[in-house]
């Protein structure tokens, strides 16, 4: 059995296990065991990957498994990983693991909840291991749909509206992606021969420019929607605010990363020429995303909205960095994805925990929580600091890499855009500190809150897991960065051929 296929198999088995179980308590245990295994497995994968690289394996992708699926269309079940996907897989398993514990208290339709949640995770894992456009697309859609149920059934507020909006917008994105994929496929053999869905094969040929001009924007925008590209980000705030805790975590933490990853892996990797020509349009859009998201976050009153807009800003930075098309910036983009994934998951986990205690998410109605629930509050502060890019946390590493990379462009346009994007670190500080100040610090405003209890053990598991990885990456970014750097080589060499700068 290929180790990568296990990433899809284990969730499926877990789901099967959950289906068979009657006792609601055991459901959680099975879910956590399954996802714990998954976490171990991804640790193993990282280990295997790194040791294979050390052993001198220089193949573009490792652990490749390629099974012909639909022969006549040349559709394969093809999986393989490079450093980037390994990193993303690691992120996913961490967030899912934390997510399971964050939803420990769920009472309503527990079984169904965990099934949907793990199904979502299956889609995400599948997406990251796929190197076949078809399977990739399949897993993408697989990941989107459980969101609807998760938000619709277990959500809060205008959940039906949000769930529908989110689903439809994401499916709209997938429409663009589908057309893009088909376009890539049918242009993957410009000199005749077999047309392919395989990313590696396609990356070796040059798709005709005419096709690239059409399909690059399609795929990029398609994935960009998921990555909260302005102005297609509006599903995100509503979706986040209505989603239950674990779903927000997974959603912002992982699902939005499908966007960045896909934009990188499909749009940029396969069509670097068009990317190079058209990047400026999207750079403007992403720069707007970055600043706009941050500014919007300043005036929000709902914790989840703040975070959602913050995600818009941070994910905008991911796309921004990808578009810079050099190794450093792209490296930063990947790190940013992981970093943002972890910290936003942490944020949402904490918001969920706070909400379950105070039953409100409006910051104005809360205050002085630091005194009553110090553990959660400290975690919140840590998340906030990570989010505003404090050294020692992963956010700093990511942002600095991005800015350093983006600044490698000698021309004025890129630099001005970079500087505009850099301003976001200040705006981020403003809204993060504002929330911390209102929410946690100051005197306790509501006497009912005096009796709140601090984190339970499962909540601690959830938050500590996330924090430890945030800190770990923040303190020792070198190996992660180098793992990713190596994997960026193929695309970089392709781009360098275009634009020796």
């Amino acid at each position, binding site marked *: 059995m290929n180790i990568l296929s296990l990433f899809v198999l284990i969730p499926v088995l877990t789901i099967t296990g959950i289906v068979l179980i009657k006792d609601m308590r055991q459901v959680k245990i099975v879910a956590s065991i399954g996802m714990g295994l998954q976490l171990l497995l991804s640790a193993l994968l990282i280990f295997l990957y790194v040791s294979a690289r050390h052993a001198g394996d220089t193949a573009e992708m490792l652990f490749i498994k390629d099974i012909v699926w639909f022969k*006549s269309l040349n559709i394969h079940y093809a999986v393989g990983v490079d450093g980037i996907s390994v990193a993303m897989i690691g992120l996913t398993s961490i967030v899912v693991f934390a997510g399971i514990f964050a939803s420990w208290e769920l009472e309503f339709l527990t079984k169904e909840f965990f099934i949907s949640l793990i199904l979502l995770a299956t889609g995400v894992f599948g997406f990251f291991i796929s190197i076949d456009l078809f399977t990739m697309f399949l897993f993408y859609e697989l990941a989107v749909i459980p969101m609807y149920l998760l938000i619709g059934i277990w959500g809060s507020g205008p959940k039906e509206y949000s769930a*529908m909006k989110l689903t*439809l917008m994401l499916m709209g994105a997938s429409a663009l992606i589908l057309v893009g994929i088909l376009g890539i*496929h049918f242009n993957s053999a410009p000199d005749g021969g077999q047309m392919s869905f395989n990313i590696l094969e396609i990356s070796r040929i040059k798709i005709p420019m005419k096709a690239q001009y059409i399909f690059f924007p399609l795929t990029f925008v398609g994935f960009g929607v998921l990555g909260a590209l302005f102005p297609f980000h509006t599903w995100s705030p509503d979706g986040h605010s209505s989603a239950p805790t674990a779903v927000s975590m997974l959603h912002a933490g992982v699902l939005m990363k499908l966007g960045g990853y896909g934009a990188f892996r499909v749009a940029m990797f396969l069509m670097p020429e068009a990317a190079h020509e058209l990047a400026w349009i999207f750079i403007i859009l992403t720069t707007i995303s970055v600043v706009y998201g941050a500014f919007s976050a300043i005036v929000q009153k709902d914790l989840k909205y703040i975070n959602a807009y913050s995600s818009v800003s941070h994910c905008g930075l991911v796309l921004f960095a990808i578009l810079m098309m050099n190794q450093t910036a792209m490296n930063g983009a990947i790190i940013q994805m992981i970093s943002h994934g972890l910290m936003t998951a942490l944020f949402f986990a904490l918001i969920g925990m706070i909400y379950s205690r105070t039953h409100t998410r409006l910051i104005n109605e809360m205050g002085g929580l630091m005194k009553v629930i110090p553990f959660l509050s400290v975690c919140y502060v840590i998340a906030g600091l990570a989010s505003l890019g404090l050294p020692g946390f992963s956010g700093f590493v990511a942002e600095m890499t991005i800015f350093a990379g983006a600044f490698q462009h000698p021309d004025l346009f890129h630099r001005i855009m970079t500087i505009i994007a850099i301003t976001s670190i200040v705006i981020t500080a403003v809204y993060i500190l504002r929330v911390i100040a209102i929410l946690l610090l100051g005197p306790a405003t509501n006497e009912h809150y005096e009796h709140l209890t601090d984190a339970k053990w499962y909540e601690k598991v959830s938050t500590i897991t996330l924090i430890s990885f945030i800190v770990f990456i923040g303190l020792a970014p070198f190996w992660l960065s180098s793992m990713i750097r190596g994997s960026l080589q193929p695309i970089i060499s392709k781009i360098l051929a275009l634009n020796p700068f």
Partner: protein
Amino acid sequence: MNLVNFSLMRHELLLVVAALLILIVEIFASSKSRKSISLFSIVLFAVITIVGFLPSPTGTLFGGMYEVNNTRLIMKNILNIGSLLVLIQSVTWLNKDENHDKISEYFILLVSTLIGMNFMISAGHFLMFYLGLELATIPIAALAAYERYNNKSAEAGIKLILISSLSSGVLLYGLTMIYGTTGTLYFNEVAQLYGNENLQILGFIFFFSGMAFKISIVPFHLWTADVYEGAPVNITSYLSVISKGAAVFIFIIVLFTVFPLIIITWQKIIYVSAVLTMTIGNLFAIRQQNLKRFLAFSSISQAGYILVGLIGGNQIGMASVIYYILVYIFSNLAVFGVVAAISNAKGKENIDEYNGLYKTNPGLSLVMLLGLFSLGGIPPFAGFFGKFFLFTAAAQNGYYILVLIAVLNTIISLYYYLLVVKAMFINNNEAPIEKFRSDFPTRLALGICIAGIVITGFASIIFEVIKNMSFGV
């Protein structure tokens, strides 16, 4: 008639025999043993279905009137499977007291429409095609009007029969033009002579209109919703799945084998009607409350997607359309099966009456969910694969804009499918439909549908087989 010829025609012949056998049984059956007629018929039909899958020679009979090749065999087998499912699903309904006295007629009529479809698919001549078409339509009108005590059923019957006779008039008028300009009605001969003269295009358009009526392509679709709503649920499912599927099959055959020379023209026509069909179907579906009506519009938009697959005129297109019909049969029958079960047990057919269904009837809700997701093209269900292949086929010939429109339309359709999902899973209801246990045939049929939805997608062999037997223009 030798054995080979028999084997060539076995689908039709066996069905005729079946129809006659049922007639005979009916004559000898006492009023008590009538209920076993259903069992008998279904077993008989199951046998026929299996026999249909036996390997078979191919060739033409009756001087080209009748033609069998692997593609057509597959089409017939697919229709058989679908019909078998419909038959199994109908048992509950037939066992109701008010339908008790005409069980065998139901089977005879249904089987004879299937005979008509089979002949239609095997046609090598427009006369056979026409007769098959009529044989496939007229009894259905009677079936639609089957519930004599029901106003809506009668209305559905009259609407269906009148519009279908008009449309066959139009189709015939087109055929006269085809005949007039080529001097023949044999498919293979017409194929070589049919060009792009104005009159020939006019003939094609009239012919197309007649066919489009059967497939419910906009603007020839307006009967669909009313008939679907009025007809008994099982007939509706038969209409929306088998009848439409057969029409699509013959439509492919005709387009690919008879009109290859005017492909440019029919591609344009299909382009326009595909866009219209998807969009209009979806726009109407959004606001439906009655599930049958809702599914009618959904099936209209599905027809639009099918046209998208057809437009390339390539092998993949043909394969994907056939495959999609198979998938569509499973998915739609799963949905209809649930609707029928609830309608038969509780008489409820409105979406808001389904509110909170999951709490009381989780099994049915899940089946419905899977069916709807498959229809909506959500992985890992077969509908996803089906749609993907359809769009691939269109994209192969560069119809990217059409594909984009189609995919955007799938979003609208996903929207209204999700409305049903929402009703079942999310909406609160103080008094949801009570818990009830559906009987064995229903569960069997639903089980098969679900298996089909799941397996058809993953098991690439099915698509490959179809692909290998398909051909392009």
